[in-house]
């Protein structure tokens, strides 16, 4: 593994329904870690729904970049028919849409999305404060946010809060269909 390589790791073990793990990174100057539930490897033929990540907590300073980390996993040899594309909508904190773009996260990979760099590539000044709505994908995702001091290399990390934290609808069979239609009905990829 090279120094700058990103990898998705599969833990093989008992088919527990839920596993909490500590992800720990260290580089000689610091150790950062996050406690998080681990995403399951789905059975062959599993139909993946698009995901929704509201990346509202960006710190965009001259010496700080915010990365949205999109790690994903799909059973080998069972690739989904549709690509692992996602729509990224960039807004300022006052709700104005500044750009809408697309990314292809790739399958069984980790996609690192630098928020300020993405904004600048669309002519947007990141210092005004930005919020991203990321929707789509065709696999099982684990989403993290990493802050990086571009001068010292210092890091901060946290796992995301998926929609189930904000609403019971995704896990409530009576509500799920209407929620999916409302959240993704206009999504075209």
């Amino acid at each position, binding site marked *: 593994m090279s120094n700058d390589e990103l990898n998705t790791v599969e833990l093989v073990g008992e088919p527990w329904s839920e596993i909490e793990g500590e992800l720990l990174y260290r580089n000689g100057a610091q150790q950062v*870690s996050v*406690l998080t539930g681990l995403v399951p490897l789905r059975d062959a033929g599993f139909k993946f729904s698009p995901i929704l990540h509201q990346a509202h907590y960006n710190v965009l300073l001259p010496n700080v970049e915010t990365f949205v980390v999109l790690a994903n996993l799909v059973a080998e040899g069972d690739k989904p028919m549709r690509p692992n594309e996602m729509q990224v909508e960039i807004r300022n904190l006052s709700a104005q849409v500044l750009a809408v773009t697309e990314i292809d996260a790739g399958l069984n990979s980790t996609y690192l999305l630098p928020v300020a760099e993405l904004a600048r590539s669309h002519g947007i000044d990141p210092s005004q404060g930005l919020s991203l709505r990321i929707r789509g994908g065709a696999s099982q995702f684990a989403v993290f946010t990493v*802050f990086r001091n571009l001068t010292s290399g210092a890091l901060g990390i946290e796992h995301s809060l998926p929609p189930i934290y904000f*609403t019971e*609808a995704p896990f409530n069979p009576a509500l799920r269909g209407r929620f999916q239609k*409302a959240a993704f009905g*206009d999504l075209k990829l």
Partner: protein
Amino acid sequence: MTNLLPAALARAGRALDAAHMKLKKAKPHLFGSPIRQNMVQLYRHDADFDTIISIPHHLSFLAPDTNIDITYGIRAFDRNGKLVADREHRVKHFETLQRPISELLGCEPDEHGMFSIRCHYSSPSGIDFLGMTSPQFMTIFMPRSERGAPQITHSHKYMDRFPPLKNAFVRRSALLEGDPNLTGISYFLMNSSGVTASAALTLTGPSYSARHPVTVKPHGAARIDFDAAGEGPFELACEWDRVVNHRKPIAFRRFSSGLVTAAHS
């Protein structure tokens, strides 16, 4: 027998809460929207860190076709549990409320303490399919040092609605600490309940172990510094004398490089 009464009261509290939410779901125009709220988190406002609170207008991405204003209430306490301020902020569709805590409160808070977030909607119309909702948020600890990186933790448990009765328990964190450059760890405890609670943090490792008892006032917070250094691994156990809702001390690790990183335990 001593554990039965607290358990029965906790069950009764949950049943009452469930009945209340059921009423709200059935008649939101009459009883208000079903919102589970008053989640808590730590703030720091000291020589090492300031705090930024980031709150999304959560109905925007859950129900994009609606257009409902959300009023978020932010209540902060000092380390002794005294109310510092209680301010409300109205946020429109797809806006984000992300500001330093002193701006949100309209005053300077204590060096550290607990805060909570609540909300209400300008209308309950068009969001019945969301069922029960919750105003989750992120807390960003901004380093004063130019070399540091922001640290972040998500919103945690809800503030206790009923006083938890005495019932000792121990929570062992899955977070293992230790690094060749580690020079110490500061843990911040919060008492999410309205009654005084006693706790003890025990950090156990091959080269260093220590136990620090502390009493935390209602809605108060406490900082406990450990001199744990080196590889460890160090394991944290947190003993409470009451079953308070919030049981995850926030860890801030110090390294010989001068960097500090944080995580919930």
